[in-house]
């Protein structure tokens, strides 16, 4: 490649507004890309297109109503938000959640992780031009959505998590159906995923693209699959919240490539990990109540975190002894991964920008809650 000094004609920088409306972006995000020919030299984010002020609304709602409010922070991993919020309030109010409820929370949380990862793999396949793979992966995802509808009554906004437990139980038939669907999903993925992992064209588009070395990932505060793809073994399920402490195999899935391919492989491997965790949770689920009554109002402050499909989700909750919270704050994983994204883009080709953006699995409605 020619350097700038040896070019026949001097290059001029061009600024391209990438987004907020772009075919590859399901949600509005703008990156102002400074280009030298086709090469990105700088990227600046511009957000604010869908900020809803949910943190402020949470101060006006009853702390129990907030369970359903925070679930709407994200239309993909909604259950994770309600789970994190409930765990925070339960910590503040010293609520002892029944063990059966904790196992049921794991079942729905891991089903949510599976559908989120399948959604991501489909979208990223579409971004690098493999539409058939996109359709097939979303067809498999549909099985997960159907089993969530059968067990929780809804496909995405489950609304089954409540302060003190969960609102629905699983009977034996639902447990057997869930296990059957998991087997079917894994069988179908065995046929699809080798294409994603080994296809020459796919590897050409992903390997060595959007590099994030481990020291930069740490310094830039990257979380979740973005950090694990750079070799950082960080997975908050290891802290043992809900029933994760009773399950085997809750170890961080890591890759060392630090590129788009590694970030995709993390999701591929975590699909199998999540399926195994659901199986274990269903097999080990203890008998007993699924919820306990909660009395009083939250007082004090808590910082609670968990592992959402995109990484570390943090809620700060401050109660004042009334029905309304003094402050609710959400730090979502995409928000934490934005600085890392800004580091990945300089040096890449303009044609690779959509794939690199999607490789962190951005969720802008989370980011701008």
């Amino acid at each position: 490649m020619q350097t700038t000094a040896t070019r026949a004609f001097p290059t001029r920088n061009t600024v391209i507004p990438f987004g907020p409306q772009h075919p590859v972006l399901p949600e509005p995000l703008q990156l102002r890309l400074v280009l030298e020919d086709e090469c990105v030299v700088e990227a600046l984010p511009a957000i604010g297109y869908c900020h809803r002020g949910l943190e402020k609304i949470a101060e006006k709602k009853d702390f129990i109503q907030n369970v359903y409010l925070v679930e709407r922070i994200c239309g993909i991993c909604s259950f994770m938000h309600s789970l994190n919020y409930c765990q925070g309030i339960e910590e503040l109010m010293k609520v002892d959640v029944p063990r059966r409820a904790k196992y049921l929370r794991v079942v729905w949380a891991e089903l949510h992780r599976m559908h989120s990862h399948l959604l991501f793999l489909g979208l990223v396949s579409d971004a690098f031009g493999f539409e058939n793979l996109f359709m097939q992966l979303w067809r498999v995802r549909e099985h997960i959505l159907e089993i969530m509808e059968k067990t929780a009554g809804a496909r995405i906004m489950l609304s089954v998590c409540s302060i003190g437990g969960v609102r629905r139980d699983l009977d034996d038939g639902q447990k057997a159906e869930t296990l059957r669907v998991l087997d079917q999903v894994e069988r179908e993925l065995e046929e699809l995923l080798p294409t994603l992992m080994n296809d020459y064209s796919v590897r050409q588009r992903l390997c060595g693209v959007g590099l994030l070395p481990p020291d930069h990932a740490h310094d830039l505060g990257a979380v979740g699959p973005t950090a694990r793809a750079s070799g950082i073994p960080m997975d908050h399920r290891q802290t043992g919240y809900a029933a994760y402490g009773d399950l085997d195999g809750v170890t961080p899935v890591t890759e060392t490539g630090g590129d788009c391919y590694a970030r995709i492989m993390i999701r591929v491997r975590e699909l199998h990990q999540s399926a195994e965790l659901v199986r274990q949770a269903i097999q080990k689920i203890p008998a007993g109540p699924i919820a306990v009554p909660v009395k009083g109002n939250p007082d004090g402050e808590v910082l609670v975190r968990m592992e959402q499909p995109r990484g570390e989700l943090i809620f700060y909750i401050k109660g004042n002894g009334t029905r309304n919270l003094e402050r609710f704050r959400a730090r979502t994983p995409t928000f934490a991964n934005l600085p890392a994204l800004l580091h990945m883009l300089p040096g890449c080709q303009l044609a690779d920008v959509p794939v690199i953006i999607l490789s962190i699995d951005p969720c802008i409605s989370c980011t701008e809650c």
Partner: protein
Amino acid sequence: MGEEFMLNNVQEITPDRLVGEASLIKGQGCRFVTVTCTDLGEAHDLIYHFDDKGELRHLRLKLPHGATLPSLSGVWFAAVIIENEIQDLFGITVTGMAIDYKGRFILAESSPKAPFNKLGGIAVDVRVRPAAAAEAAAPGEAL
């Protein structure tokens, strides 16, 4: 769930010590997590969260209304996103940011100023406390 979630590991500091203390924490290998800002009425309560090999630790400071806040983006570039958000939503002027959106990171020109601050007059939500809202609208008269 563990005790770490109850914000036990908190170090109270003053704004002028923020950058120095954060540099020390970075030198110990910690990861920058985020900043939480709460409006207390007369001042802002800012908590800086860091991850020390899986354990959370925090720096906490009180910033009087109208005072400026030094940026941590020279220590951790990752801080620049949340600092711009705080500048927009709480009206705090953050000095020395690596990228300064001048209050236009999230908010548009026509947006309310510092919408996350607690201000008298807009704190009553009629959906939550209809009686209080009616009293505020017409003191002494019942609905």
